[in-house]
């Protein structure tokens, strides 16, 4: 007969090690997540600085140079930032105050950029096309609408998409909603002062904005020109090979 003994110290020691592993994993993850938020914040600061400088330029109407302002890649940066922000929103808690503040700042930056671009368009007559997009939580169609807009932004870098969380507690968004009389039927798209409810496919939006077709044709022409160049190139190579 043997008497079984339990080494309680070992059970506690293992518990301690396991807890330490857990603690390390959680701290490391928190560290990386904070890094991510910092990255978003620094991009936002950069953009806000850019907008401020453009605003100062517009304020000094006399010195207003259409070439300088319309040439900025501001909106594309904003778009990329939006994607990062929604990833952070998913991976952290959506109610995270850190993320919420970033989201509010982001919405304000978007509105500023929107107003600025409107003025540029009026003054310089440029062909900037805007889509103002309102989405909400628990809205299945919004997911698809978001995909469509991301795709459009990839295909047409000139297109400016401003997306807003309809229910975000920001006074400026509420004002934007009331000025344009946008109802709480999401997704909602505001294009050239017309409001479109329900999901809009890529084809629908291309119908609504004729300028997109113009851009598409331009792109195809450029592509054909490049292909024509490429086709003529191998002949040169072939001749070289023969010569060698």
């Amino acid at each position, binding site marked *: 007969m043997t008497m*079984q003994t*339990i080494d309680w110290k070992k059970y506690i020691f293992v518990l301690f090690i*396991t807890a330490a592993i*857990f603690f390390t*994993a959680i701290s*490391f*993850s928190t560290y990386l997540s904070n890094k991510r938020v910092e990255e978003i914040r620094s991009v936002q600061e950069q953009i806000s600085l850019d907008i401020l400088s453009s605003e100062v330029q517009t304020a000094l109407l006399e010195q207003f140079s259409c070439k300088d302002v319309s040439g900025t890649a501001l909106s594309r940066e904003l778009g990329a930032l939006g994607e990062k922000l929604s990833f952070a929103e998913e991976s952290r808690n959506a109610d995270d105050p850190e993320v919420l503040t970033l989201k509010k700042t982001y919405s304000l930056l978007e509105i500023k950029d929107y107003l600025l671009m409107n003025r540029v368009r009026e003054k310089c007559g440029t062909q900037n096309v805007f889509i103002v997009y309102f989405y909400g939580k628990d809205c299945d169609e919004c997911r698809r609408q978001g*995909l469509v807009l*991301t795709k459009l932004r990839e295909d047409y870098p000139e297109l400016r998409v401003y997306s807003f969380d309809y229910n975000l507690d920001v006074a400026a968004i509420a004002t934007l909603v009331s000025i344009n009389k946008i109802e709480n039927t999401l997704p909602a798209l505001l294009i050239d002062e017309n409001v479109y409810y329900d999901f809009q496919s890529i084809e629908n939006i291309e119908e609504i904005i004729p300028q997109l077709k113009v851009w598409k044709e331009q792109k195809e022409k450029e592509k054909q020109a490049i292909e024509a160049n490429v086709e003529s190139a191998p002949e040169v190579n072939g001749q070289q090979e023969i010569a060698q």
Partner: protein
Amino acid sequence: MFNDISQTIIYISLFFSLYFEVFLLITYFEKRPLLRQESIQQDLARFPTVTVIVPCFNEETTIPKTIFSLLRLDYPKDKLDIIIVDDGSVDGTLRALHRFKNNSRVRVYSKPNGGKHTALNYGLQYVESELVGCLDADSFVEPGTLKTILKYFNDSETMAVTPAVRVYKPRTVIELIQKVEYTWGIFYRKMLHFLGAIFVTPGPFTIYRTEVFRKIGDYRHAHLTEDLELALRMQTNRLKIVNAHNAYVHTVVPKTLRSLYKQRLRWTYGFLNNSLDYKFLIFNKRYGNIGFYVLPMAIISIFSSILLLLILTSTNIARAYDGLIKFITVGPDLGFSFDWFFVHTSPSLFLTVFSVGLIVSILVLARRMTEGRFHFSLDLFYFLFLYGLIVPFWISHALFNTVFSRKTTWR
């Protein structure tokens, strides 16, 4: 809601699996000097009498090889008895046994079919030796195995010695997965030996003192896992079970997924039901580590593997559905861009990676223990990536059968 629940389950499972692995590794490093000591060859002081019972039911292809391996054991001929019990085979087993008719060292008995435990008990009644072992008819011993095992009986408290079971000539993927699993098993059982918590005395060549059966009774039906029940009964009666990690037995394992599934369904069902029968062991201080570590961990792993598979399946279905929606809405996504920003960095991911790392290190140690050195081979890959995906299926099936008390069959 679903997310919160699944996250909680994931973290609890990760906590227990890490606890289990760290406990195992610490035991290893703590007991390594003892392990080295045991490996030093020492001679047997004396040669006790031994009887090996081989129960067989429809094993015509493997039984001759099993008997020949016993006849080749390096042990005095007059001290070793071999009893073959045919449990009413309907194939050519009896014909195969006929060739041993004139061998004075082999006794062949035949009885009507009644199950493995009845065949073992049938053989036990003819045993007069000091020690008795059993050997499944699909397993083969090495010449030195018996002597290595018997050294552990120098300790008068030792009542049973289990061997190290290896897979016989693995070829198919299913066999290779089991090869790694059995290597893990050799390591795990040795750690249980140090913890005094061996909970199964395998059919392939566990040797007992004959008095064990006189004291606590014969084999029982035990939900078709008589070797598990006997070990638990021995633990209940505080009879010491040890493991000889360098006494090798080679066993034929299922070659196909179907036959493996059948076997594991029986094992898991047996484990669950015997755990229910012996539930008083769990968290009972009197029975040591078997009640506080082995059985609780095994039961937790059964439930967590089912839950994790469910979560994994549902998240992947959701992901596939999202992908489909994306494809329908905007067409194929041809562009590929990589940004560190979008790499997931949740604690559960780090913990999973760490846990898998510990499993790999245990496998490395296990392989070094069984093969002398570590080498990488494809079977490790199969084990790590396929085994976890198939295990939950027989576990869930066994759990279902246990809850609704259905009978599980042998074949």
